[in-house]
């Protein structure tokens, strides 16, 4: 963080292949690299979930070839309990960190934030490049844990101590596996800190002439707010991971209590605090949920506006609400710990902000819906996914009412109800945001249109499939189905297995549908029909670049000057019902009522 003066470097277009495509300083290339990483990660995570689902639906069914993945984990292709948990842990970790954080935030943010504020690049391109490659190394370290003798950690993506801190005595993967996990996450934090640093500085200092804060598009606002969250959250997770590693390799006792007996052996550690890890982790963990979803909100708003042909009912209220989410997200993390032995009073204290956070969320949804009203909605794959995201966010949001209350958490904590809740509200909603953004921005990123027909089929299968997977999760939870079980040996869980079979089938089908997307992505990248500069007739600056994809310096030498608020739709402009942010023409602007 000591040298901040690389900006000039970015403005000489590199000539060598390596500098252009691999160790590039260009925010656009780095954005694409992040997107590629997320794409690889999401398919790894998806395959892991398939294996888990198959196992949950059909108990000790041998999955042909599984032993190739792990001879110990699946002897004779039959999955062992530890291997199930290891896959589950890796699914959670990879999805949360390497997909939900990288794709909507780091990938799209890197590509479009500088363009949308009218800058040639980020101020610190070297940090930007490091941010990606550090993240990449983190991913490799995480994947590496698949190949150590007893496999990756089985402690779940929350890595509760002391299970995660005691070492190999507590089970397969709890030795080297955990150390690799913690190392990977610590490295990941460094990468995201570099990224956030760039995002914040770009938004504050790199805005072009006339681009006042209120003229920033909602997507930029979302990325900005997210980067502020990231800066604080990841800065807390990193030291926590380091302390965890020390408990492993240096014999310290930060998280390990006294007098623990594992396998009849009294453990040498003393006095550590189990809850300390939970506090540190969830202080990061809850903001992380919003780090995953807020960029999605921004992207969806951005896409929706250009397809509704009208500005949001209120630009500012939306921004304030997202900011409110960011602030509140630090006050609510305790709701993950209602029944974890925290003082009952503080449970109540945490319950109220948790309930109150539903107010900004509701406002955001209402603004979206209120803006739909009286709009001239265009239906295309991008807007369909945006609408789908709204629906998912609502469905996942309402179940928050339950989990915000400690008294109901007694019943629902650690059940599939929770799993259903966060998958809908955070995972799937964010993924729909990513899809929406992809279909919307792909023409600008690669200069070619994506195939709308395949896109729509992809949407329908994904939309219906997702509900088929995650709605039943809530029912299972109500019936008391505990999460993180590799088999349901309990008498009261036996009757629920058919539901799991149904979910498994739905999951496999929905997963398969994603290959349509992959095909569409690759095919359109090379053979899609060439994209015009502004295919969606949008107003923001990324569509004001002289070409698709934009030139190395985004605006071909002269930075644009901004004359209007971001979303001037539904007006009589020379170009039609919209006026670009950088077009000097005078118009009756659609402005906020004060």
């Amino acid at each position, binding site marked *: 963080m*000591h040298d901040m003066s690389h900006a000039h470097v970015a403005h000489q277009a590199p000539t060598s292949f390596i500098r252009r495509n691999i160790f590039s300083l260009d925010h656009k290339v780095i954005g694409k690299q992040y997107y590629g990483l997320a794409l690889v990660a999401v398919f790894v995570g998806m395959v892991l979930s398939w294996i888990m689902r198959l196992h949950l639906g059909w108990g000790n069914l041998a999955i042909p070839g599984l032993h190739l993945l792990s001879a110990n984990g699946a002897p004779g292709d039959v999955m062992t309990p530890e291997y199930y948990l290891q896959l589950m842990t890796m699914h959670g970790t990879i999805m949360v960190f390497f997909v939900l954080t990288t794709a909507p935030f780091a990938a799209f943010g890197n590509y479009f934030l500088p363009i949308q504020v009218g800058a040639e690049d980020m101020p610190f391109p070297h940090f930007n490049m490091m941010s990606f490659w550090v993240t990449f190394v983190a991913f490799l370290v995480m994947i590496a844990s698949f190949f150590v003798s007893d496999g990756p950690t089985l402690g779940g993506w929350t890595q509760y101590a002391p299970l995660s801190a005691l070492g190999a005595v507590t089970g397969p993967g709890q030795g080297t596996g955990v150390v690799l996990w913690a190392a990977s996450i610590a490295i990941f934090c460094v990468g995201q800190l570099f990224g956030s640093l760039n995002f914040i500085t770009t938004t*504050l200092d790199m805005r072009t002439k006339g681009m006042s804060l209120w003229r920033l598009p909602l997507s930029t606002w979302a990325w900005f707010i997210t980067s502020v969250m990231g800066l604080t959250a990841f800065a*807390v997770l990193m030291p926590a991971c380091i302390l965890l590693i020390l408990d492993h390799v240096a*014999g310290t006792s930060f998280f390990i209590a006294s007098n623990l007996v594992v396998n009849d052996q009294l453990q040498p550690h003393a006095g550590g605090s189990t809850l300390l890890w939970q506090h*540190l982790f969830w202080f990061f963990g809850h903001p992380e949920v919003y780090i995953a979803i807020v960029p999605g909100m921004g992207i969806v708003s951005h896409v929706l506006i250009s397809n509704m042909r009208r500005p949001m009912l209120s630009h500012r209220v939306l921004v304030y609400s997202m900011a409110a989410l960011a602030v509140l997200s630090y006050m609510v993390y305790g709701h993950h710990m209602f029944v974890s032995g925290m003082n009952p009073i503080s449970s109540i204290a945490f319950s109220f902000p948790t309930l109150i956070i539903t107010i900004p969320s509701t406002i955001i949804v209402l603004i979206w819906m209120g803006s739909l009203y009286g709009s001239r909605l265009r239906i295309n794959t991008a807007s369909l996914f945006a609408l789908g995201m709204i629906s998912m966010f609502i469905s996942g949001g309402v179940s928050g009412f339950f989990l915000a209350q400690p008294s109901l958490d007694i019943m629902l904590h650690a059940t599939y109800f929770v799993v259903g809740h966060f998958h809908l509200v955070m995972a799937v909603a964010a993924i729909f945001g990513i899809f929406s953004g992809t279909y919307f921005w792909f023409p600008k990123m690669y200069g070619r249109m994506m195939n709308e027909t395949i896109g729509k089929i992809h949407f329908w299968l994904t939309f219906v499939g997702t509900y088929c997977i995650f709605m039943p999760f809530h029912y299972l939870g109500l019936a008391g189905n505990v999460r993180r079980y590799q088999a349901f040996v309990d008498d009261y869980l036996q009757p629920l297995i058919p539901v799991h079979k149904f979910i498994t089938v739905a999951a496999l089908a929905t997963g398969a549908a994603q290959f349509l997307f992959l095909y569409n992505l690759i095919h359109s990248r090379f053979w899609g029909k060439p994209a015009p500069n502004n295919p969606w007739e949008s107003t923001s600056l990324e569509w004001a670049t002289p070409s698709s994809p934009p*030139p190395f310096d985004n605006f*071909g030498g*002269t930075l644009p000057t901004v004359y209007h608020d971001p979303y001037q739709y539904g007006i009589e402009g020379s170009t039609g019902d919209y006026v670009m942010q950088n077009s000097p023409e005078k118009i009756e602007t659609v402005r906020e009522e004060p």
Partner: protein
Amino acid sequence: MATTVHEPPKIDEQHSPGLTDGSGNAGWRDLGPGDGRVRVGQQYSPPPSSTGIWVGLAAISMTFAALTSALVVRKGGSLDWRHFSLPSILYLNTLVLFASSFTLEVARKKIASFMKGQRDVTANPNRWLYATLALGLLFVGGQYLAWRQLSTQGLYLATNPSSSFFYVLTAAHALHVLGGLGGLVRVIGKLDHLTLRRSTLDATSRYWHFMDVLWLYLLLLLWMKL
């Protein structure tokens, strides 16, 4: 992962003032010939490095805040906390670190006048930077001696939570100081090639002074809690 490559842009003063103050491509802030009403606002945004360094320092503060709260919780919850008196050398190190900040400030003054083209400044400001560098290294060395002192008392990383936190906090700080030293080396290099920017120097020195403040805080924390 392909990208189009273009001519490096002709920076024209009308549209990009950023490069005028030699601080990279800074933008305007809230100054626009906006629709009808011209927004009032600061003429130019500051060079990104001056914002960036504050953002970076915020992140660092957050990390140490997390470690602090960990220390407080860990101490509160445990009966096994053993108190020990800080190695005396720490106080000496503190003086060394402050001295380094002083020399750095002198260096900045001299470099400033040097940049203003007062070539009559005969003394090469570098030597003050080298002094800072030396003092910084001295400080890290001093910290190492402090650890040696503790280990001779039989207090190792894993001996007791109190010692664990001592090592973790001081090591984390020392690492950040080393980062600052790296920055100084860069500054010296740039100064030699006369490619140094004010913003770089300022950012580096802000970071360096922050290390003092951080250290003072840590010293107080350790002194109170251990």
